[in-house]
């Protein structure tokens, strides 16, 4: 398989998963609570896994400090994305200096 063919295959797998429910509108009332909560679960999972090193370990460092700063920003800024990112980024670079 050439690299180009592999890129197209990966594109097909990715697009197929994305279009699954968008192609035809369907009622999914039985799954509504799950779907309501899935975005939150997804972002917390992405954030948590993103803090791990490639071997799955969690170490104390600027990345973890940024997450703590982000949580503080969320509390101070009434859960605003801007506050989370601003506090977290400031904490990240501060932790790198220390």
């Amino acid at each position, binding site marked *: 398989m050439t*690299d*180009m063919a*592999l*890129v*197209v*295959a*990966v*594109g097909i*797998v*990715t*697009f*197929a*998963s*994305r*279009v*699954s*429910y*968008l*192609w035809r*509108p369907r009622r*999914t009332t039985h799954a*509504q*609570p*799950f*779907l*309501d*909560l*899935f*975005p*939150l*679960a*997804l*972002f*917390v*999972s*992405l*954030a*948590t*896994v*993103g803090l*791990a090193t*490639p071997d*799955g370990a*969690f170490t104390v460092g*600027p*990345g973890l400090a*940024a*997450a703590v700063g*982000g*949580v503080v920003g*969320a509390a101070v800024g009434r*859960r*605003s*994305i801007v506050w*989370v*990112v601003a506090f*977290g*980024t400031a904490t*990240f670079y501060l932790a*790198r200096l220390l």
Partner: protein
Amino acid sequence: MMDRSSLVKGMRDAAGLAPALFAFGVLFGVLAVDRGMSPWLAVASSAIILSGAAQFALVGLLPAGPGAVLVAVTGLALRHVPMSAALARLLPADLSRVRRLALAYVLVDETFGLTVVAARRSQVVVADYKTGADVMLVVNWLAGTAAGAGLGSMVDPTRFRLGELFPLLFLGLAAPLVRGRRAWVTAGMAAAAALVAAQVLPPAWQVTAAAVVAAGVGSRFRD
């Protein structure tokens, strides 16, 4: 007819993510060329796949062969199925197929998160808001990839360690959604499940598995 204010709001909100997306694109471009991809194929992969996680898995696993790449990408892509269902619920039933295909093409974590938050917090036309955010994302992702692929090893995008700020971005997208007991349980469960998944599952399956488990457990609770 598009709602101009929703479109512009989507672009404006996504503009805040632009530097990180561009830098991430540069990182991918540099890495792809370093792993033997031609610059044009690196850019083409960003246009065809349009998924940072899948593209990094692709270049990272290229030496292991197409089978390993496709297994990893399938694990990463499975999270799009509930994302697709959640977004579909926010769209009007009479939205054209062409618009639906376009929205599916750019069903990416970042703009999906912005759209879900905007739909809950403000009066926007969801399809138009997401289109605006998607345009900003695609432009920055492609421009970043092209810059990285073109400049190659002349730049060191890891210098500012912007990649380490991505968890923060996702934390920011999660924060507005944490309201009520059920949401708190889900957030706690997602963090716990991700901690466990990072220890026991291959990287490509960690996020999908943790998110599905957490949303499944959370949906059993009442607010």
